[in-house]
Structures are given as structure tokens and as C-alpha cells.
């Protein structure tokens, strides 16, 4: 199947350019609609959160109290930190107004007063693009007081993160935005949902950049039009941007309709380079890894990709060729999660550190046969036991690697070196020579 471009169809950095492609028409349409009607349209579209969890978007929108007693907030999660994912970067840089319009529609539907776009600090170009788009929108009276004579006030601010992966977790993002240490907060059933008590204990709607960017299209063309895309899947509607990287000929963002095959996505990205396909991480570094056989079978859809044992996640799709050492790949992954664990809860803080140390010892040639079981048990002690999803995200890839490529671990432990013994594979190793322990 070819690409189906919706969000990535145009590049329109300025307001003029965006207006030329029909920008803000959806917002005008939404302003004329009843607030509940906007939410119902989102419900009809079947849109699910694009940040990774795939939670139905309308439930969040509908969860904001209709009777307003406090300020309402809209928070856009633009802390795109999942390794392999770079879709929000392109969305914000190429069409920042699309994201802003989506937030404005959400703000209108939820009676919000203020919106924040929390952008990771490394995305300086995004921040500049979004900031200048916001300035333009203010100048045109699209933001600010009494927008378009409706009596509705809405302000939008850009907030830069400070370099923490954890702050992409929605409750940690709220902590960070409120000036606290970027650590996750209690969630239901331990505390009210953010839609009831989020930022400063006020109702807060939090969505991913891509989710917000979908909203104008849904409002403009109707929920039914959107839901028609991806109709071949169980419960995944519309389009999804995949950031394809790794050993492919044309890495980049590709927007496809749900129901496309994973192998088609690989074709779109110019096919595998430098050797045969060995593995794929379809949705960002935290989702389980797939082997070539599963890639051939996999259909992209929230439930469909689950059937081969992985997840859509945030859409950071990484393909690996035959020269990839899975143990070294997991060493790198484990190192990332060790360094990004915020330290709040025991399983993640200590477990990610331990997982990395074992991998480090194995690739230095000091692996022990019992390490495989130990890794599995440590992962089980983290998965579902940590405070937030970061712990789970650290455990899943390793659990999957041990399941899908157990022989690679066994070989490495037994021989003190990788099963993949090609000149290209050497590049993966952090240490020039396996170091005896």
C-alpha cells in the first residue's frame, strides 16, 4: 500500500501558507459547533492517542468537567523522547499551525483557558517554529482574549523541557511544567485522573502532538470520513506516521493508513540495506522486538500488531539487518533506560541499573549461564511493579529479545563473543575487544 498523507501532506510554516491550504477552517467550523458536538465528532472518528498507549481520545476530551469551576488546561505532549521516534519533530517544524489548531479545537471543546506545548529542549527548531506560529495566531486574533467574538479566552505557551525522557510521561510532564522535579505523580485509582485534577489540581487535557494534529482534519471532514480510513483493522482508524530508521535505504517519516503491512512500510522506506532483514522494533525502543518472520506477517494496527507480539507505540520503527548483534542492541537499550530512569521507584531505579550491568558484563565476555534466567526474573520484578510505565518500557524489549533471540544470548554467554561475526557488526560494540572479566 502506498503512503496516505494527511498530516504530512503540506509544508506550511507560516500562517499565510497554512491558510492557503485551508488552515483554521476547521477551527472556525468548531467554533460554530456545540462543544459536545465537537467531542462527538472525535468519538465517531475512532481516534486513539498517538503517543504510545493508544487510549481513545474522545474519552479524555469528554472527561473534562462540563460544569466549569476551575481553570481548564490543555497540554500538548511534545517531549518526543522515545528512541527511534521523530514524527512530532517534523509535524511541529513543517506545519506548526496544524498542531496549534488542533489544540485550539480541543481547548474550545473542553472550555480551556490556557494551553501549554511541552517541547523537549533538544527540539529548538520546533520550539522556534511553534513560537512564531503562536505569535502569528495572536496577531490575527486566533489566540488571546475574546477569540473571534465568541467571548472565549485562550492562551497558548511553549514550555521547554530540560532533557529528561521521563518528562514525556504525562504526569511527570505536569510535575516538570509546574516547576517540580520531573517525576511521575499518582494516577487513578490512587488519585483523580488529570482530566479532573491535573495541572495545579485543575482539569487538564493531555494529548500527543500527532493526536492534536488529527483534530482539524476530523472536524473539517467529519468523524465518519476519518473512521473510514483503517477500516480493515479491528479498532485502529485513520492514519499514523511512522518514523522509519535503522538499516533502510530511505529513512524518514512515512504516513500510512492503519491496516498497511509492516513489510509495505519497509518498502516505502526503500527496503533494507546492507544485508537481509533480521529484526524490527516497530513502535519505539520500548516495544518488543520482532524477527523477520513476524515482520512479514505483521499488519499495522493497535490490535493487529499485538498479534505478532509487539505494539504500535509511538511509531518509531527501527529495522535491523543481519549484521545486528541483538545482545549489543539490548546493551544499548538497557543503558538508555538506566540513564533515563527518574529514580522515584525502587524497581525501575535499581532494576534498570542492574539490567545494564548484566548486559555490560555479558558483552565484555563475562556472561554466566544463569544470567539469562536472572535477566528474565529482574524484568518480571520490574514489569508492572514500577511507579510509571518507564519501568515496563525498560523491561519489555529485553523480555522480547530473550524470547525471540535466545540463542544470541546463549552464544554470547558461552563463547564470550557475538554470534554475529561480520566486519559490519563490530561497529555495534562499545568496547573494541571483548574484555575478559
Amino acid at each position, binding site marked *: 500500500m502506498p503512503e496516505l498523507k494527511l498530516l504530512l501532506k503540506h509544508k506550511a510554516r507560516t500562517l499565510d501558507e497554512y491558510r492557503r491550504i485551508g488552515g483554521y477552517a476547521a477551527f472556525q467550523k468548531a467554533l460554530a459547533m456545540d462543544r459536545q458536538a465537537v467531542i462527538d465528532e472525535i468519538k465517531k472518528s475512532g481516534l486513539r492517542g498517538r503517543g504510545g498507549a493508544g487510549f481513545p481520545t474522545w474519552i479524555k476530551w469528554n472527561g473534562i468537567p462540563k460544569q466549569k469551576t476551575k481553570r481548564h488546561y490543555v497540554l500538548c505532549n511534545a517531549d518526543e523522547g522515545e528512541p527511534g521516534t521523530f514524527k512530532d519533530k517534523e509535524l511541529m517544524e513543517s506545519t506548526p499551525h496544524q498542531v496549534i489548531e488542533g489544540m485550539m479545537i480541543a481547548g474550545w471543546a473542553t472550555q480551556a483557558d490556557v494551553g501549554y506545548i511541552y517541547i523537549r529542549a533538544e527540539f529548538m527548531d520546533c520550539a522556534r517554529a511553534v513560537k512564531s506560529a503562536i505569535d502569528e495566531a495572536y496577531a490575527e486574533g486566533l489566540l488571546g482574549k475574546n477569540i473571534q467574538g465568541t467571548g472565549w479566552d485562550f492562551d497558548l505557551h511553549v514550555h521547554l523541557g530540560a532533557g*529528561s525522557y*521521563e518528562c514525556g510521561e504525562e504526569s511527570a510532564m505536569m510535575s516538570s511544567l509546574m516547576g517540580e*522535579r520531573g517525576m511521575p505523580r*499518582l494516577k487513578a*485509582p*490512587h*488519585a483523580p485522573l488529570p482530566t479532573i485534577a491535573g495541572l495545579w489540581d485543575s482539569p487538564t487535557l493531555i494529548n500527543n502532538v500527532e493526536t492534536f494534529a488529527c483534530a482539524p482534519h476530523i472536524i473539517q471532514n467529519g468523524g465518519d470520513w476519518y473512521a473510514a480510513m483503517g477500516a480493515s483493522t479491528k479498532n485502529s482508524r485513520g492514519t499514523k506516521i511512522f518514523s522509519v530508521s535503522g538499516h533502510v535505504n530511505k529513512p524518514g517519516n512515512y504516513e500510512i493508513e492503519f491496516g498497511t503491512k509492516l513489510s509495505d512500510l519497509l518498502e516505502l522506506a526503500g527496503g533494507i540495506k546492507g544485508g537481509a532483514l533480521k529484526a524490527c522494533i516497530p513502535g519505539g525502543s520500548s516495544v518488543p522486538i520482532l524477527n523477520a518472520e513476524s515482520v512479514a506477517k505483521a499488519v499495522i494496527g493497535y490490535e493487529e500488531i499485538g498479534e505478532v507480539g509487539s505494539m504500535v507505540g509511538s511509531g518509531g520503527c527501527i529495522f535491523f539487518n543481519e549484521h545486528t548483534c541483538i545482545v549489543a542492541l539490548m546493551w544499548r537499550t538497557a543503558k538508555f533506560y*538506566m*540513564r*533515563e*530512569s*527518574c*529514580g*522515584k*521507584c*525502587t*524497581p525501575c*531505579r*535499581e*532494576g*534498570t*541499573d*542492574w539490567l545494564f*550491568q*548484566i548486559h555490560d*558484563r555479558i558483552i565484555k565476555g563475562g556472561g*554466566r549461564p544463569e544470567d539469562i534466567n*536472572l535477566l528474565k526474573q529482574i524484568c*518480571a*520484578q520490574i514489569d*508492572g*511493579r*514500577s*511507579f510509571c510505565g518507564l519501568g515496563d518500557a525498560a523491561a519489555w524489549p529485553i523480555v522480547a529479545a530473550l524470547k525471540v533471540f535466545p540463542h544470541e544470548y546463549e552464544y554470547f554467554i558461552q563463547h564470550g563473543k557475538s554470534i554475529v561475526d561480520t566486519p559490519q557488526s563490530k561497529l555495534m560494540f562499545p568496547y573494541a575487544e571483548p574484555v575478559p572479566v
Partner: protein
Amino acid sequence: MASLAQEPGLVTITIDGTELQVPKGELVVESVKRLGREIPIFCYHPRMKPVGMCRMCLVEVGMKQPDGTVRMMPKPQAGCTLPASDNLVVITDSESVIADRRGVLEFLLINHPLDCPICDRGGECPLQNNTLFYGPSTTRYVEVKRHLPKAFPLSRHVTLDLERCIQCGRCVRFTEEISGDAQLAFLFRGAAMTPRTFELTDLDSKFSGNVIEICPVGALTSSDYRFRARPWDLETRPSTCLECANGCSVWFDHRGGKMVRINGRVNDAVNEEWTCDKGKFGHGYLNAPDRPAKPLIRKEDVLAAADWSTAYQQIVAHFEDGRTAVAGLVGAKVSNEDLFQFKRMFHRHFHSPNLDHRWTRILPSQTEGVRGLHGIDEVHTRIAEWESVNAALVVGNDLASDQPMVYLRLRKAWQRHGAKVVVISERPTYADHFASAVIRCEEGKLFEAVARLSAAVLQNREGADALRAALKPFAPDAKDRAAAEALKGEFFTVCSESVYAKPDGGKTVSALANLAVGTDNAQRFNLYPVGANDMGAALLGVHPGGQGMNTREILEGCIQGRIKSLWLLECDPFALWHDHQQVQDALENVEFLVVQTSAPNQAMQYASVVLPCCAHVEADGTYTNIERRVQKIEAIWRPKGDAKPSWKLFTELMLRMNPSRPIFEPSELMEMIIAEDESFAPAAYHNLEGNGACLPLGVDAGAQLFMEIYQ
């Protein structure tokens, strides 16, 4: 199982198959205690907001469905953050829960140094205990353990062993939530996360010692106690802190006749479980090597050890029937019984009214002060009541120093329900950070500041026209008016007697009383004493009354020769009186000076006779705190050398002067106190078990204004 009938506000939950009703929203970790079970914890502390960090309390959770089946949640949940709701099902003893606990403990232990044999916490360590009951018996960790600084000083009192830290965040949360100084924070992230002070700052909180006690491992240690003892070698006895007048309950740990450490003891009426640093680290004088152990008598300019009989003989010769030529001055750490007997001895045998326990610059007489001028009691509010006040006016010195527990309760009131607090002080105070208005006045201008605020408060109210008129000369500025907004309705006033140390202290107190009376808040006015048993001394009448001399007059009398013999009971005038030269002149000039003390002091060098007496931990006695709670302290040690309880010493002297039935027990003295003053009736010894007994507060005899101060 049949469902229990539901009471309003209660929900029915099931814990390990047992159905029970608990208040809606109660945390599961607390509900489990109702069944006599426990969920192991580290980061959870009942007096702080739950955070669910350590994951030690993971339990399996489900919801009972209408058809009777139970739908379990896919992941285990933290019991310390989970509020009870109807139909909640909790499993605390399944295989999976046991495995989770073992997992969390394994994680906590992999980088823990396991130096338990030399760790201060060893033997009383929650990590040790939980490991014993729920942890793995061997380790699977073969990597190199994390190495971090072992003795990382956070302050004069607190030393951090970073390797032992399990990052539970209790200490960080304490400084954020309870003491409010937010001096500790987590630095770095992941496995490198450590609690620290910020760069170039110290943990100089007035409440820093508490973090040592709430630390669930031996990471935060007392710099004084570090490596000095093992907990099982200590003898731990309940006691009460006498470093200020709050009377906090403490555990007194001693070993080999030395005080080793002080820990907070739970007393929900007074200190909850906290201590201030003054109390926790302030008992060092008990260990002083040169505490007097024998009576000393001056012979040719040298104090030489003597026997009691000689000392008594000399004292009787100088004091008996001394009338106005003898006087006594008293310190703060003297029990009710000692004070009562001292007063009796002065009144009955020395026939002298010259007694005082106050050391402030201003010494209001019976007809002055709050009672004399305004007809209201000094104290109306109990300590625990402060956490439910809605508005408060805090005046004078730092509340956190003078009344640490009132400060903690007031901060709690602000944190829990946004109590409005107005601070008037000359210098920065701890309460500034949560006060809705701070009025910072120049040194010596406290009275004017109170008067201006009074004028602003009265502008918002009806009535009190006479007071409003009297306040005309004091024009409030914008800041006063803003502060007055917080005091529109009922408000509580708190000021400490330390304000009497200021030249305008008397006028300040009177202006505060006027404001309280004028706004119908007299029932919420408080002028708390500062010294440990100042309240007891005031109630027992250890003051000049109508005829006697007060502290200043006594010192002047010594210089002028009108006072021939002076008795100093547990007080060092050099440390207490503002004019050192006057003290020196007085002690040099007085003919006969008795220094009765439990610790060496500067006045001893002028003494004719030194009498060694027991410190509070060496004799039974009762003490009255700021809320008139009479608490009994029991003897923990044997007295040093020949030292005697003060009441016994006075009794023996009185027997010499007038043989009568002797007194053997301090409880007999309390009976005599009650016979003399009915308000002490609740304090009969049989009522004093536990947290003591409270005497009546707020004995008001018609509130009135006193306008002359404004002229």
C-alpha cells in the same frame, strides 16, 4: 459472606477474605492494620502525604462485581496510596505479593552496603526488619556495588551515609511538608539519585533532627550519636523535653549514666512525634563532667566540699526569718513540686515575699499584664487546636524558636486548609514563607506595628469605637490594610513572653490584648511562656505578688545592700538577665549567696554555698507546659553523687527550722498544691499516666480595653 450493613461515610472492603468497613478514602495500608495485619513499608509515613515510591507495599487489588465475582487489576498496586472504596478487594498474602516484596527488597539490597554490624540503625532498622520477614536470604548480585561518600555532612547535627540510602524520600518530604524549609531535595536521577542539600546550603532547619528518626535505614545519622552505641545496649525511657515550654514527649536513651540520644515519642496532643533540634540535641549538659556532686562551702575564697548538715546550718543562719532581706530567684527547669516547696519555705520560714521566676526586661506586676489590665487569661488555645485555625496573628520573635510545636501545627493548618497567617516581627521568621502577610518593623517598633495593624483591622469592623478612636494616631498603610484582610473574621493571636525582653514588650502585649478584646477574639488570645516550667511557676505564685521584689528589684537590692542573702535555684543570671554588669555587681555585693544547681554555671564562682540538686531525669516531678498540660517526668538515673531532689532538700531544711511531719513523696506535694489551688485538681498523680492532664484554660474575668498605651 453476608454483607455488612453500610454506615454513612464508611465503605465495605475485603482484605484477605475478611470483609470490613472502613472510612471512605482511608489508605489500604491503614485499613490492613485494623485486622492486626501489616503491609511492609519504607516510604510511607502516616503524617506525610503518601507517594508510593518504594513499592514495598504492593498488594493485589480487585473490585467485587455486582454478580459477586471479583475483577482483579492486572498490576499489583501500592497499598500506601490506594484509597478505600466500596467493593475493593485487597490480597496481601498471595504468592505473587510475596514474590513482589522479595523483588523490591532484592533491588533495595543490591546496592546497600550491608554494614549492619557497625550501622547506627542496626537492630532498629526497618530495612533489616523487612528483609528478615519478607526478603531474600541470598543475593544474586555479582556486580560491583555503588560507592558513594560515607560521611557526608549535611549540617552540624546530621551526617548522611549516601551508600545506605534507599531513596525513599521521607527526609525530602519532611523538609517540604512538615518543617517547610525545603532544604533537602533529590539530586541527579535514576540509580544516582541522592537526597542532598542544594549547593552551598546546609540543613540548618530548626527541625533537622527528625529526618534522622524517620530515615528507614542508617543513611541519615546524628553527628553526635554516630558509632557511639548499639540500640540494644541503650536503655530507653519515656520522658518530656524541658528545652522549651511546649513539653514534647521524648524517648530518653541512656547508657552507663550518660544521655546518648533523644528521640521523639508519639503524643498527638503535643508534638505528634516530632522534636525540634533544640530539644533533640540540647540535653548535653546532663553529661557535663563537672556537675556538682557534693555540697560546696566557701572557705577563705575557695569552694570546698562539705556535708549537707554544715551547708544547711549556714543557710538556716542566713535565711531563717530573713524577711525582706532575703530573696530567691528561680530558673525554668524546676518542677511544680520543687517550686511549691521553695515558695512555702520562703513564705513560711523566711517570711520573705521576694521571689521571682521571670528574667525578661519587663516584669509585669499582678495589676499589670494581660490579666491585670485586660481581665483575660494569658492562654486560650491548646497546641493541637492550632492545626484547625483559619486565621492567626503571629507577633514577636520567631514562632518556630519560641513555640516549635505551635509553629508546626500552624503550618499544617496553612498546608491542609489554607489558614491565613499574619506575621509581625522585627526580623525574618520561619513563618514568613507561608504567611499571607508579613509586617516587618524596625527594631523596637513592634508596638507601633501592632497598633497600625489594629487600626487597619478595626476599619473592617463594626463596634469598638473607643478603641478605634484611641488608635487615631496610628495610620495604617497599604501593607497593614492588606494584612488586615486576613483578619476579617475570627482570628487567633499568638505571642510569646520573650516579647517582654523588648523595651516596648509590655505595650505590645497590651495592644494585642486590646485588638483581641476589641474584635471579640479574646477567647483566641495567647501569650505563651517560653521557659520549660514558667507556666507552672506563674500558676504556683513563684513571683513577688503584691508586696515582694521582682527580679530587677532583687538584683538592685543586692547591689544596694537591702538584700543580704540570695538563693539561686537552677538559674544562671549571667545567661538569663540582659545586664551582665548588674548581675556581677549584685552577686559580688550580696553577703550570702546560695547557688542550687544541677549543672555548673557562672554564678557558682560567687557562691557562699553550692547545693547539688537533681536534674529532671534524676527526680520525679511534674511540669506544666504552655497549654497547662501537667506532665510527670520520672527519675531515670540515680542522682549524681550526693545531689538531692530540690523538694527533698527544701523539706529537710524546713524540718530543721520547724520539726513537723516530713514529706516523703512528690505526690504528697501535689496533693498540697491541689489543696491550695483547686485548678490543679486534674493534676493529681493518679491522673498523670500517659500524656498528663490539662488544667483549665481561658479563665476570663470580664474582658476590658486599656487605652493609655496609645498616648
